[in-house]
């Protein structure tokens, strides 16, 4: 800066400082309001997860598989493949085919998950091996498991329906989950479990028709 710096320039510079400060103050404060609005609108339950008990390890035979319905309605196939008594024995895979959302099931003889809709297959780790998912390199979604004091837990999303029970009851509402043992019969039944062929299939439930479906209509406990 030199001596001959003219006075008006100083004036202009401070003028621009004032307007920049103004713009900054306005942007920061109203921007935060916008952020609050965004947080308000962001789906609330999606990030809520909880650990649910599946069953004691000693009651879960190696090689067996069961179907677990989460409180949010998704179904998970849980299989036990080893006897180490640790979490590595187990694999929990979403039973929803990543291709078009049909229900996959475990085929013991072929050691694979099979989706009857378009003959998609997945290996024991849920990696697509054949059919459309195999071609597209899609895998079955997996769930976190935990073994604690001889009990198997699964972490599942909750997507709370707080308003389903306006008459009171504990906060968060009442949800339901289910555990279904899968016998070999179930596994072989294949097409019978195919939700795509069943007109009453409810994708919210993802579980095909059954007692669980009826129950889910009645999420709120009668007062």
């Amino acid at each position, binding site marked *: 800066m030199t001596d001959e710096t003219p006075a008006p320039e100083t004036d202009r510079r401070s003028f621009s400082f004032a307007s920049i400060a103004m713009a900054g103050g306005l942007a920061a404060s109203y921007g935060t309001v916008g952020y609050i609005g965004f947080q308000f609108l962001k789906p609330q339950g999606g990030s809520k997860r909880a*650990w*649910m008990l599946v069953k004691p390890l000693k009651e879960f035979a190696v090689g067996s598989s069961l179907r677990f319905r989460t*409180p949010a309605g998704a179904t998970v196939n849980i299989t036990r493949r080893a006897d180490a008594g640790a979490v590595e024995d187990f694999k929990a895979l979403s039973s929803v085919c990543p291709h078009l959302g049909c229900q996959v099931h475990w085929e013991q003889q072929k050691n694979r998950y099979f989706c009857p809709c378009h003959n998609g297959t997945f290996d024991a780790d849920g990696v697509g091996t054949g059919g459309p998912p195999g071609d597209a390199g899609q895998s079955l979604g997996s769930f976190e498991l935990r073994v604690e004091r*001889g009990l198997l837990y699964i972490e599942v999303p909750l997507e*709370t329906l707080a308003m389903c029970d306006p008459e009171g*009851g504990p906060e968060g509402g009442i*949800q339901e989950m289910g555990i279904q043992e899968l016998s070999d019969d179930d596994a072989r039944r294949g097409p019978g479990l195919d939700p795509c062929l069943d007109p009453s299939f409810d994708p919210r439930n993802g579980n095909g028709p059954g007692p669980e479906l009826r129950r889910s209509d009645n999420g709120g406990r009668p007062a």
Partner: protein
Amino acid sequence: MSLRFKQLVIAVLGVMFLGSLVFVQYMEVLRKKHETAGRDAPVVVPDSSARCVDCHAQGNPGIVEQWEHSTHAHKGVGCVECHQANEGEADAFLHEGALIAAIVTPRDCGRCHQEVYDEFTRSHHARAGNILQSLDNFLAEVVEGKRDDTVDELEKFVFNPHGKTPGRGDFNMVNGEASAVLGCLQCHGSKVALEATNGGRLTLDDLQPDTTGKATNLAAIARIKKDENGKPKLHASTWPNTGIGRINLDGSRGSCSACHSRHDFSPRRARQPENCGKCHLGPDHPQKEIYEESKHGVAYRDLKDRMNLDGETWVLGQDYTAAPTCATCHMSGHSKNGGRITHDVGERISWTNRPPVSMPLDTDADRKVVTETDPVKRQALIADSWQDKRTRMQQVCANCHTGDYVNGFYKQYDDLVQLYNEKFAKPGQKIMAALKEQKLLTKRPFDESIEWTWFYLWHHEGRRARHGASMMAPDYTHWHGMYEVAERFYVHLIPQARELTHAARAAGNLAAGEAVDAVIDAILERPEHKGNIVEKRNH
């Protein structure tokens, strides 16, 4: 006001507004924290229990609502998970499509809580049901109630009221065991029985459950009385009962709901002294009152809101330090033992102050108190010594007290127990034994005054003194304890014993009278008794 000034004002106000929004953000964080601390977890009804919940929410809403506040409900553990029964269990019945039992035994809880089940099963708590032949039980059943051992099982406890109760024509025959049923057994635990077809009881002795809990005695099973729905009836003298040493039909011992009240199984409640106070109180074992008198109890009452009672974990020295409760010292995890909880309540207790004379708690492999006196044999029997137990307790103490302080306390405590044992308990025991030996007392307990006197001395006052000392309650140690022990000894026990010897001499039984008097004299000769009692010597 120039435009530039206005712009600066806007900038300043914008920053102030931002500040207020930061405060809003802070409040939101606080709210979120509060939310996750509270019980906002969703209630998850497993499909298996959906029908139970639907129906019982209307029939017995309390059960369902309590369950909704339990951790079970938040982790998806429903009704059937606990109440389900195996084929072959004596009290199982088919209810709305599920095979269930009304009583959930520790074996059932142990399906998931295996470690806790093992610890509890070997604990003194699980053996609390073994009072059936004790003095206390004799008092409740015979002296307070009506028991006739000469008649058959069905008649044994029948009490026939002598008068009529206006308005209650339905009183016919009454259970003479009522005081035991509602008193002793509600803490100690009943021997659960099914009603037999003849109205009698079928306990595990009759049903002979195998290791999986299934009844094996077909003859007994055939005698189980069932209602029109095939539901076996539990004998009303034994159920409802949540006594901690309940003897269950499946062979397991105890009741988890004694402390973990159904159906919310609240850890918060089990952490509080009031929970233990259901049983550990009163004239003969006032642990609850002793605790309240002690500094520990005073601090707890004051600082309850700093106890983190709702904490997911409750480790002394990590989650809280404000004060100890019963659970803190006897069961809970602490920072010095890696937070390991024990459900074996005796693991940290080094004296047993229950019997007339306190014993160091050396336990054998079966967790029974070693009574062997030969040092070598004794050492061989001990699996867990009193020193091991004391060390475990001292580790708890060390969370808040220095080593010298803790050792000093234990010296004071040991001294008092020894003083009581040697000055009053053993001499009293000796006098009572001499009277029995010389046949100056009948075999039957509680039919002579001196038997009540002696019972008061050790069972009530002596325990109060020792329990008071063990948990730092001065008034219970002295005025409710040793003072009354001394008074009972000098003013009641000795004169009553002398009365018996005088009576014996008067009746011509000189040898017996002299033998007992010699025992008493030898005791009173000792320096600690000298001059404490002036007797009229008329023999």
